[in-house]
Each structure stands twice: as C-alpha cells, then as structure tokens.
C-alpha cells in the first residue's frame, strides 16, 4: 500500500499546519473542511427547527377541530417549515458535503475562493435568523405557503419583508457558493483527473451549481417584484394595475422546479459513491449516469408548468408540460436501473450508509412514481394541492434527499472525524427513520386521493383515521433524529479509531490518497491520477 504510506507522510507534514483556536478558528476560517463542518451543523440546527414546526403541524392535525394553534399560526408553520427545510436544512447540508468532499475528491488543496467561501457561509446565518425571527413580529411569520403567491402575501405585515430579505441573502450565498464550486471543479483538478474520471458526487454538484446560478437570480427577481408591489406602488402581480398573479407562479416555478433537482442531484452523487463501495463492484454505467444527470437538469427548465395545471392554461400548454414532465422519468429510470445493476452480482454488506442508500432507492422511486401520476394533467386536476402532493414531495425530499444526506454522513464520518460511529445505533436510526417516515407519509397518499386539501388546520371527519396515523409516524420519525444527533456526538467523543479504509470498496481519492482522519490541509501537492 504505497498510497497509504505516502498518505501517512502527508499527515506527518500536515501536523505542522496551524490555525487560530477557539471561536476565531470558526469565524475567520477559510478552510474548506471547517466551512463544511459549519454548514453541516448549521443545517442540522435548522433541520431540528423545521422539524419542531412539522411536529406542531402534525399535533394540530392529530384530530379534527382546532386544539393547539389558531389558523393564522398554522399557516405560518406550514410556510416557514417549507422555507426552513428547503433553504436552511437540505441545501446547506449539500453545500457542507461539497465543501468537505469536492477538494479531496479531485485532489485540490482547497476551494478556489476560500475567503468567499467563508462569506457564503456567514450569509446564511442572518438569513436564517430573519426567517425564524419573523414569527415574533406583529402579524406573525409569512403564512402564504412557501411559494409566496401574491396577492395573499401582499396582505401580510413586516414578516414578508423579512422573508424577502432572507431569500435575497440566501440567494447571494448560493450564487457565491456555486461560483466557488464550479471554479474549483473546472480549474483545480489534479493532473490526470479528467472530467470523465471525476467521482459522480463531483459531477452532480457541478451540474447543481449551474442550476443554482441559473435560477437563484430568477427567484430574486420574483421576490423583488413582490417587494416593490408591496411598498413602491408597482403592479407586477396586481390585475387592477395591469399585472397578473399568474406571472408570479410562472416565475416562481421556473425557479422552483430546478430547485427540487438542486436538492436531489447531489443525493444521486452520494448514492452513486456508496452503492459501488458496499457492493464491491464498480458503478455499472458511469458515463450514462453523467448524461442522465445532465438530461434531468436540462429537462428541469421546461417542466415548471406542471405546478400550474389548475390555473387554466390552454390545452396546448397543459399537454406540453405533461409530456415534458413525463420525459423526466426516462433519465431517472436510467439512474435507478444503474444502481440496481451495480448491486447485481456484487458482494454486498449492509452497514448504515448502504441501508440508507437502499432505503433511498426504494422510497425515492415511490416518490418518482407518484410524480409520474401527478404529471398526468387530468389526474393532477383531482390531486393538485391535496395531501397526495405532500406525500409525493416528502418521498423525494425526505426519503430522497435527506436519506442520502444521512447515508453520506455515516459514510464519511470516519474520514471526517477519524472515529467510527456505533453501527448498532446507526442501524437503529435507519430502521426508526424508515418506519416512522412511512407511517407518517404513506397514508397521506390516501388522504390526497380522498380529496383532503393541504395547508388546512382542520379537516372533515372522513380524514381523521389516516391523519392520526400520519401524526404518530411523524413523531416517531421526528424523535428518531435525536438519536442521529447522539450517534454523531458519540462517534466524535468515543475515541474509537476508524481504520484507514473503513469501507472495503471505497476507491475515491479521499480514501485512497489521504489518511483517516483527513488532516487539516490536504493535497498541498496535487496527486497524480492515472
């Protein structure tokens, strides 16, 4: 193992790297690993906050009638839960992964713009504070759903301005992060690391970063128009002044649909790293996975209208968006088939990262199928804005994106911390999550089919049974995440040293060319990739 020996030399050398200690280390850090860590802890904090909001929602929906919260506060909960989970939990978690992994996986010493990297992170903090603090201003937090549709949103108070400002700041942060990631990937690859040799996680993030740069300014434009409609007498979305509320929907979803792929593409990358490692077999079709990812990203720009089948578009519009949306099933199918073909005739073991990846595979596919059902315009008419939609996007975002985040955290924890997590507790976390998740969200398909609208604090009696199940599942799922927190902290503190290569089949640079744990500075001299 000359590579490992070389890696040990490297570690010895890197011990001399010094950095400020205490709070200054974290405030002024330009180190991609520190910034990655900051992003990941921030994301987990927001995940818990968004989770508390979700549990308040599920507590109110445990039975019909209003028991805990009034309808205005309920609407704020659903709205801010969505915003916090999308912009505060899932996206920053992926940026955290990108920071930690991209330089190590392409053999770079750090990100291309380390100081901008620090600034990208410290922008998301005030944005999160604005979002959460908006609960405490007169009138309460934004209560129009996370889509912020006017004219409803125009009716509310200062919390809307806070939300708009938060979205602007988050957008600026995402754009800077994306520029950093693209520049790093295109310019700092080690000699021999051609584009088509990059690990898929790097590929998926490269494509995600382009999506972000394309759509975050569009969202910024939309919320700026909201702001001027509110305060400066414009009428972009006000019919009385010549505007059109539908235009906001078009602009929002032109951002919103690529946004869902922004949250899921890095998940594809993580799962594409984990399944081959635990099947001890190379990814079946590397090139077709890259092309499928790119196809999904391109298609994501021409399907936004499927969020708007009920606004009354002409038949031609409905049909175009239906066909385009259905097409996405093709590259997504290619990915699923590739992962299964990778497992086929492998030599599999089922540690926690693999369990979460298999959970991802099954449940994300269910979310994909319900997406196909919703793509069919006439069927969407009866399911639009019902709990079926809620079930669908939680299958793709929780058992999709979030499960992949868990898989990735377990997979790279040894590399990040040098310690091994408790496999028993990790598996317990997986099973509790998967069971709680399905009890919470599977019945929501039935509620939607039976016609229960979403974003309502109270419901007709025929929806009572499944709602009760859903609430029970949500609480199981929610509290299981405290176990995850415990597993991570226990891992960091346990002192149970991980082996140099804890996963037999892992073969990317961070495993083959670097010691475990990864030293503070890595690849000061670029490795040569053959």
């Amino acid at each position: 193992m000359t590579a490992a020996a070389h890696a040990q030399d490297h570690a010895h050398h890197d011990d001399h790297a010094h950095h400020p200690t205490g709070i200054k280390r974290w405030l002024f850090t330009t180190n991609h690993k520190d910034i990655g860590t900051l992003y990941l802890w921030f994301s987990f904090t927001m995940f818990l906050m968004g989770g508390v909001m979700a549990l308040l929602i599920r507590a109110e929906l445990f039975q019909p009638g209003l028991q805990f919260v009034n309808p205005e506060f309920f609407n704020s909960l659903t709205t801010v839960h969505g915003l916090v989970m999308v912009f505060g939990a899932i996206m920053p978690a992926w940026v955290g992964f990108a920071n930690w992994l991209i330089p190590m996986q392409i053999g770079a010493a750090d990100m291309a713009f380390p100081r901008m990297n620090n600034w990208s992170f410290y922008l998301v903090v005030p944005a999160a504070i604005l979002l959460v603090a908006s609960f405490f201003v007169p009138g309460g937090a934004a209560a129009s759903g996370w889509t912020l549709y006017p004219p409803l949103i125009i009716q509310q108070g200062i919390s809307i301005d806070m939300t708009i400002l938060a979205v602007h700041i988050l957008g600026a942060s995402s754009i800077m992060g994306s520029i950093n990631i693209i520049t790093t990937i295109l310019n700092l690859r080690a000699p021999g690391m051609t584009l088509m040799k990059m690990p898929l996680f790097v590929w998926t993030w490269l494509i995600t970063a382009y999506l972000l740069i394309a759509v975050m300014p569009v969202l910024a434009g939309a919320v700026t128009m909201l702001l001027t409609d509110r305060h400066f007498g414009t009428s972009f979305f006000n019919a009385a002044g010549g505007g059109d509320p539908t235009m906001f929907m078009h602009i929002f979803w032109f951002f919103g649909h690529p946004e869902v792929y922004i949250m899921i593409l890095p998940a594809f990358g993580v799962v594409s790293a984990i399944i081959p490692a635990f099947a001890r077999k190379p990814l079946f079709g590397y090139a077709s996975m890259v092309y499928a990812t790119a196809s999904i990203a391109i298609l994501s720009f021409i399907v936004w209208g499927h969020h708007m089948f009920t606004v009354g578009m002409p038949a031609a519009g409905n049909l175009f968006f239906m066909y385009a949306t259905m097409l996405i099933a093709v590259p997504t199918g290619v990915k699923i088939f590739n992962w299964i073909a990778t497992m086929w005739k492998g030599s599999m073991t089922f540690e926690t990262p693999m369990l979460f990846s298999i959970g991802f595979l099954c449940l994300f596919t269910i979310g994909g199928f319900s997406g196909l059902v919703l793509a069919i315009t006439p069927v969407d008419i009866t399911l639009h804005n019902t709990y079926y939609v809620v079930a669908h996007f939680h299958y793709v975002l929780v058992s999709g994106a979030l499960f992949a985040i868990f898989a990735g955290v377990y997979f790279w924890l040894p590399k990040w911390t040098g310690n091994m997590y408790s496999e028993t507790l990790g598996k317990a976390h997986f099973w509790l999550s998967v069971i709680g998740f399905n009890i919470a969200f599977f019945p929501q398909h039935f509620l939607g089919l039976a016609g229960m609208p979403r974003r309502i604090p109270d419901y007709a009696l025929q929806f009572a049974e499944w709602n009760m199940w859903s609430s029970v599942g949500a609480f199981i799922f929610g509290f299981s995440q405290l176990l995850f927190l415990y597993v991570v902290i226990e891992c960091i503190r346990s002192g149970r040293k991980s082996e140099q290569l804890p996963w037999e089949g892992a073969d990317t640079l961070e495993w083959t060319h670097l010691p475990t744990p990864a030293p503070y500075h890595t690849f000061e001299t670029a490795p040569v990739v053959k």
Partner: protein
Amino acid sequence: MTDNMGANMLRNTLRTAATAAAASASFAATAAYDVDILPPASPIAQQIYDLHFAILWVCVGIFVIVFGAMFYSVFTHRKAAGAKAAHFHENTTVEIIWTVIPFIILIGMAYPATKTVLEMKDASNPDLTIKVTAYQWAWEYDYLQDGVKFNSLLSTPRAQIEEWDKKGEKKNADYLLEVDKPMVVPAGKKVRLLVTANDVIHGWYVPQLGVNQYGIPGFVKDTWFKADKPGTYRGQCSQICGKEHGYMPIVVVAKSPEDYATWVKEQKAASPAVMVASAAPAGAASPAEDPNKKWSADELKALGEKLYAANCLACHQATGKGVPPAFPALDGSKIATGPKGAQIALVLAGKQGTAMASFARLSDTELAAVITYTRTAWGNKAGEVQPSEVKAARKG
C-alpha cells in the same frame, strides 16, 4: 406568534394526551380508511379515475419487477452468503433497452391522457353558465342565464371547530363540508363555470366532478362539468387563501332538470331578508329589496348581527376585538365609531393591501344592517346607518 398559542398549547397537550385514547375509540365508530379516489360522478371524473387506476397499476407492476430484482440481489449477492463480486460494467445494449422501454410505456400513458385533456379543456356549448367568484372566505354563484345570485358560506358552527379552551361540541356528519346555500345544478347538463376571485387566489375543487380550477383575481378562467345523476358532491377551496382557507367548503347539489327549474323559481321569489346569511344580488333591485325603506335601529341591529356572524366574524371576532394587527378591532375603532360616510366607503371598497375585501356584493339593506351592528355593538355607540345612505354612497 399569537397570544393564546403558548398557553393553549400546554393546556391542550395535557388534555389531548389524556383523551387521545378515548378519541381514537370514538373515531373508530366512523372509521373511514379510504385508499382510493372518491367515486366519480361526471364523465371527466370517470376518465380521471380510470387513468389513475391504470397508471397506478403500471407503476406498481414496474416497482415489483425492478425491486423484486433488487431484493433478490440483496439476499443472494451478499458477502455474508459468500458472494464474490463480479466486475462487469458498461453495456450499451442493456442501457438502450432500459431507456427505450420506459419511453414506450410513457407513450402508452400519454395517449389516453391527451384525449382527456382535450375533452377537459373544451367548455364550449354549455347548457348553463355559472360565474363563480371567490372571496375571503365565501363563494359567490351567479347564474348568468337564470338570474340567480347568492353567496355560499361554511355552515358548521364555530362551537364545533374551536377546542382551544374546552371540548368542542359534537361534530356534524359533514363537519367542514357543509354550506348554508349549495350550488344547485341540473344533472345531466353541461355546466360551464367562469371562475374568478375578488381578493386572492382560491381554488374551486370538487373531486367527484373532476373540477379543480383556480380563481385568480382580475382574470376569468373557464372549466366545466356534467353531473351524471342527482346527488350531493362536496369539495373545498384548494389554494391557500388566508387564515380561513380550511373553512370555505363547496357543496354542489345536482337535481333533475324539473327540480332545478322549480328551485330557480323559488330563488327568484325569495326576498333578500329571508336569505339572510347569504347575500342578495349586489345592487340589483330584487322585489323585496327597498333601499328607501326606513328601518328601526333594533331591526337593523338584529339583521346585522346575523350578517356579521356570516361575513365578518372570522376576522374581526365575535368580541369585535379582531386579531391585531392583521385583523383590527372594531370595538372602539376610529372607523366604526367615526363618521358614517368613511365606514360605508371602506366597506364598499375594501382596503388595498389588506385582507379587508370589498363587500359591495351585499345589498344596501344588508350593508346598512351590518354597519349599524358594528357601530352599536360592544362598547360602540355611534348610531345606525339607513339603506338609503348606503345607496347614496354606492352611487357617489
């Protein structure tokens, strides 16, 4: 964060924990574990049902095959079972096959769906046209040919809904899905809906009739349905429209064409005062509406109280204290105790940028009554407003 939330939450957490078991027992009596789309009641709804049924089972079939293969692999190709890893990868033939087959399946799904879309979007040659206007939080139905126009509001009593401080009253069987005046249509006739909204976006959604159409302020969109047979079909607003979004149900009653004709006659004969909670045609001089009649303060206040409960209470509250700052108090407010003219103008026009909608759809008498109520109820002592004053303001 609202005032009553924290305290209510603590109190209710305890109470709910204690009554959860009892509650689940009582729901078991009416257990409804529905897992499918509601029985379709129109041709389009039938097509939707069939499309969903077909696509669902195609998906289930694919899922079983694909994940059957995966789980077979999980159980046999495991290291613990002694499996040795093969090293094959990249096979163009296989990759072409698993790209083309899904594509063909999708075409099979798109074909029938396209037919339904084209039929769904064809609202031409209707037998009847109803203009649906959504308000925060009521539906207004305007029968363009038959000259009938009324509002439709939730009829479930608040006492069944609010359980913050005490156990709610026993809930009606159609809890939250019942209205004071349903939309009545003739069965077997093509009904075209012209859907719009007055304030924010709403969604007119009746799943059994296969209709879900946004009402967008400033724009009119059309859709249609044809109820197969007489019956009652229920739905709800599908697009979040503010705090009472969960409380604006839709009920459609389909009657035989003869019964429908009788219903139309009855509506035309009914006086607005009888139709209390549902407003009379806006501004239209229906027989019993006489804006020049002088009413006593007590008569106005009595009628006004009912109208207040139906139209104003959700925001301004029974106590008149509102939910500031979004929904201001009327008790002691400058407007409800100030000059009459300003208040009439505000109620007629609504206030831009707030949830206060225009209530011009109420008749002169009704507006006079409800304004009188707000000026004389609680601690307010500002005196009554006569229908003639509203009429004058409307003209001016």
